[in-house]
């Protein structure tokens, strides 16, 4: 952390290249809100940012308890960053449980700001503290700033004479205000947001606004803070930006695809963490012709998507791993009927119900093989929250161009995490040209396009194209049911070949770093940021390591084999036990080694650096 000392009227300002802050408190303390406010303000201010919310387990836990702790981590920087940061430099802990849970992740010597009012015996007990950590010296290794947040906040709001409980609810805004001063950010964006959000509740607007400013002023005046910090704007590529989560970007990507294809989007889904937000988001945009159907279960959602695809819409279903398992029989039907359906899997910790609110990459092989029979589908996976937009768009581009189901593999980390997104210029978006069959002349439901092997999309309502499809094996061209042995063999290979040909219509993979060397790190999905940062830092040190990141998992980019062959060692870091590694080994007979972490958490840059160095 390059720090530059400068002079300020009475308090000094320290310049930081980047800082990682974690807000932590009780589920009820509004930490997600506080975090995203700080994020937005920093984004608007011009920092590069990356965030990692950490929700408690699905069930609400009792106030003050360990399982009830909710966290939100932000990494802000004046250069471009790709991860929420390995270790928080600053922790804002609203209660003992929050301190207990998050302390182990802290940078040694980091700043810890706690609400001392919450360190009551009861809360300490709930958090499993025998003695008060603020007093027993156990925090000696950190710069602890204990503040009676509740009281200060209550006093600040006296004038409004709210009920105690009401006032208490604002204390997160007080903390936010303090942090704004500490990191030298404007309070206005948040004040505006409060204004808008609570329009109809002037009481609340007043209270929250007051809390923010009070917190800011308190920090400014109190002796507790001797310095504040400044993180300059980052040199991002020119353009219009917004902060966006992966799930938002995913929803927008699908809507953009629908606009580009000029076909309405049809989303059938059954709620499930962490995919539900996509349903919530899409259901708000019906004026784009989007239809959303909350189905009775995942099978029904898949069935409805198949029906909508048959009827000519951009059919989409979204879920997480357990839901995919349920859909798998119906996905087979979509493969046999060769209909364009996108299946979005926002992966979470498995197996079974597993760790529903944690992230994982363990559904890749399920997407590849999780159906009866030889049942190939295309698979794409975004690399970062913002990248979700493009890959969601790609999913439909491929689905419609090849008349095939396509898996879109995101995960909880990507879906809930956020980063600045350079808003694309609409006119520059690729077109998706969907052509429906219209003329009965020589029409056959299973006649194929020579390049893509796609069959025609002939939708009900079109005169003269009446035909019947289904799950039984199809006769080549006519699409009639066929039990002919040779036809079956032919069709099985043809369906495989069709997916293989997708490789002719996707970009080759680009090597980050030299095109050959000692170690090639191969990643996919949400690990992009950590891997690239780790590799970059080693490259800076002149080490012979490069990396590639696969956003197309099936089929693989055409040049993948060649790229792999140019390195002595291939390392595949994954948040699973080695699923991509398995595919690479089988396909290319390359002795890829894995670095596998299955903790429901993303990789840290440091652990990757260490692992890679081990191979160099």
């Amino acid at each position, binding site marked *: 952390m390059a720090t530059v000392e400068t002079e300020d009227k009475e308090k000094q300002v320290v310049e930081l290249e980047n800082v990682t802050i974690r807000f932590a408190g009780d589920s009820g303390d509004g930490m997600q809100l506080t975090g995203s406010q700080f994020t937005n303000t920093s984004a608007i201010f011009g920092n590069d940012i990356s965030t990692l919310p950490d929700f408690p387990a699905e069930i609400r836990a009792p106030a003050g308890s360990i399982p009830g702790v909710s966290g939100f981590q932000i990494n802000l920087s004046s250069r471009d960053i790709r991860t929420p940061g390995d270790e928080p430099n600053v922790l804002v802990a609203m209660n003992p449980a929050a301190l207990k849970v998050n302390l182990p992740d802290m940078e040694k010597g980091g700043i810890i700001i706690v609400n001392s009012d919450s360190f009551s015996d009861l809360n300490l007990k709930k958090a499993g503290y025998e003695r008060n950590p603020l007093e027993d010296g156990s925090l000696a290794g950190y710069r602890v700033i204990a503040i009676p947040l509740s009281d200060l906040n209550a006093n600040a709001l006296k004038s409004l004479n709210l009920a105690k409980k009401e006032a208490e609810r604002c204390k997160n805004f007080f903390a936010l205000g303090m942090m704004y001063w500490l990191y030298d950010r404007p309070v206005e964006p948040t004040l505006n947001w409060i204004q808008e959000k609570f329009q109809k509740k002037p009481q609340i607007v007043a209270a929250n606004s007051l809390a923010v400013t009070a917190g800011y002023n308190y920090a400014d005046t109190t002796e507790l803070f001797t310095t504040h910090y400044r993180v300059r704007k980052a040199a991002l590529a020119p353009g219009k930006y917004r902060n966006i989560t992966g799930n938002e970007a995913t929803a927008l990507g699908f809507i953009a695809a629908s606009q580009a294809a000029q076909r309405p989007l049809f989303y059938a889904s059954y709620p499930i963490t962490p995919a539900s937000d996509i349903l919530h988001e899409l259901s708000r945009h019906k*004026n784009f*012709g989007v239809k959303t159907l909350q189905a009775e279960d995942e*099978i*029904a959602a898949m069935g409805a998507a198949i029906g909508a695809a048959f009827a000519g819409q951009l059919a989409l279903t979204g879920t997480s791993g357990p839901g995919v398992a349920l859909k798998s029989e119906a996905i087979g039907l979509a493969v046999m009927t060769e209909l364009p359906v996108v299946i979005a899997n926002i992966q979470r910790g498995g197996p079974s119900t597993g760790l529903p609110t944690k992230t994982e990459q363990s559904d890749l092989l399920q997407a590849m093989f999780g159906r009866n029979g030889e049942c190939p589908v295309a698979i794409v996976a975004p690399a970062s929250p913002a990248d979700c937009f493009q890959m969601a768009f790609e999913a439909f581009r491929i689905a419609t161009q090849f008349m095939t189901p396509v898996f879109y593999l995101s995960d909880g980390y990507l879906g809930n995490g956020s980063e600045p997104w350079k808003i694309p210029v609409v006119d520059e978006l690729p077109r998706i040209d969907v052509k429906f069959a219209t003329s009965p002349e020589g029409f056959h439901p299973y006649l194929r396009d020579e390049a893509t092997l796609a069959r025609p999309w002939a939708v*009900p309502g079109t005169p003269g194209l009446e035909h019947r499809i289904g799950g039984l094996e199809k006769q080549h061209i006519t699409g009639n049911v066929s039990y002919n042995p040779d036809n079956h063999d032919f069709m099985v290979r043809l369906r495989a070949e069709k997916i293989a040909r997708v490789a002719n219509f996707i970009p080759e993979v680009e090597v980050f770093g030299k095109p050959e060397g000692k170690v090639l790190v191969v990643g996919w999905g949400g690990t992009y940021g950590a891997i690239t940062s780790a590799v970059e830092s080693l490259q800076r040190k002149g080490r012979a390591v490069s990396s590639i990141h696969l956003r197309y998992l099936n089929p693989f980019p055409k040049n993948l084999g060649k790229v792999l062959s140019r390195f002595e060692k291939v390392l595949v870091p994954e948040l699973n036990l080695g699923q991509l590694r398995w595919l690479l080994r089988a396909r290319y007979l390359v002795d890829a080694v894995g670095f596998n972490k299955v903790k429901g958490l993303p990789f840290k840059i440091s652990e990757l650096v260490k692992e890679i160095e081990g191979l160099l």
Partner: protein
Amino acid sequence: MSDNGDSSDKGTAVLELKREDFVSDQETRWCPGCGDYSILAQTLKTLPDLGIPREKFVFVSGIGCSSRFPYYVNTYGFHGIHGRAPTIATGIKAANPDLSVWVVTGDGDALSIGGNHFMHAIRRNIDINLILFNNRIYGLTKGQYSPTSEFGKKTKSTPYGSIDYPINPLCVALANEATFVARSFDVDVKQLASVITQAARHKGISFVEVFQNCNIFNDGAFKHFTEREFREDRTINLEHGKPMIFGKNRDKGLRLDGAQLAVVQLGNGINESDLLVHNAEAPDPCLAFMLARMDFPDFPVPVGVFRSVIKATYEDLMEEQVQESIRRMGPGNLETLLSSGDTWVVN
């Protein structure tokens, strides 16, 4: 942005449609004597008269002998997977409300593996015509008992008799407030054709149970009341607005004793005016529920239209929300959407 398109103009001239136009080139592959043939025949007879261009029909099915049906109708068709036809049909109808969507299903397909979708399609009141071919057996898998098989039925999978109590599909439909509920059987072709026509014309979910003889694995399952000689005495055809009379000599009827139905003999003191008059349009489905539970021998087996009421349909409500949003917010503008929320510019 729905798919109505302009197909209707260039659509097959409706008036000219004949039965032949709906016969597909696929040879029917049911066992000789199967009741499915009759249901197919009556459906083919009905379709031309509905005033709907051929290309707007979609027949969706699950898996089973009955589910082979779509192959034999020269319209759009989808032979789905076991039990899921209602979900596929829901997707089709919701995507394009302009289509006439039919589901053909079996007692196993609809009530065993497909029971949940059956229930939800009904409670959504989506405008689909759902025809259940009830042969009280699994035909395609060669003769296991089904959810409608009588208790104690000996089949390949139950050599000592089945031990689950049968489901009454009409009751389940009514419990889910189905807006159209009817019953017929394969051999009464006139009544069958009329029921199918009424189902087709009803807007909203139309559920029709058709007793269908599987002469291979469950032959004669219904003959105790379907056979000519005692059909009139053992069945009653419910007709809206008509008193509930039945019997060869039209001399028996149904009356309400308290909350119970009773069969009465007309004559000596009891006359038509004492009988229940069938009101298929009653908002309250309770009486229909009572009628649906009648069974031989205590009661005549009821057929005809039990219920036919109007309620906003799922696909219309969905379409309305889309149109309403467009009215209120204007047609979606992608540029605006992408740059909504707090944005900033980097130069």
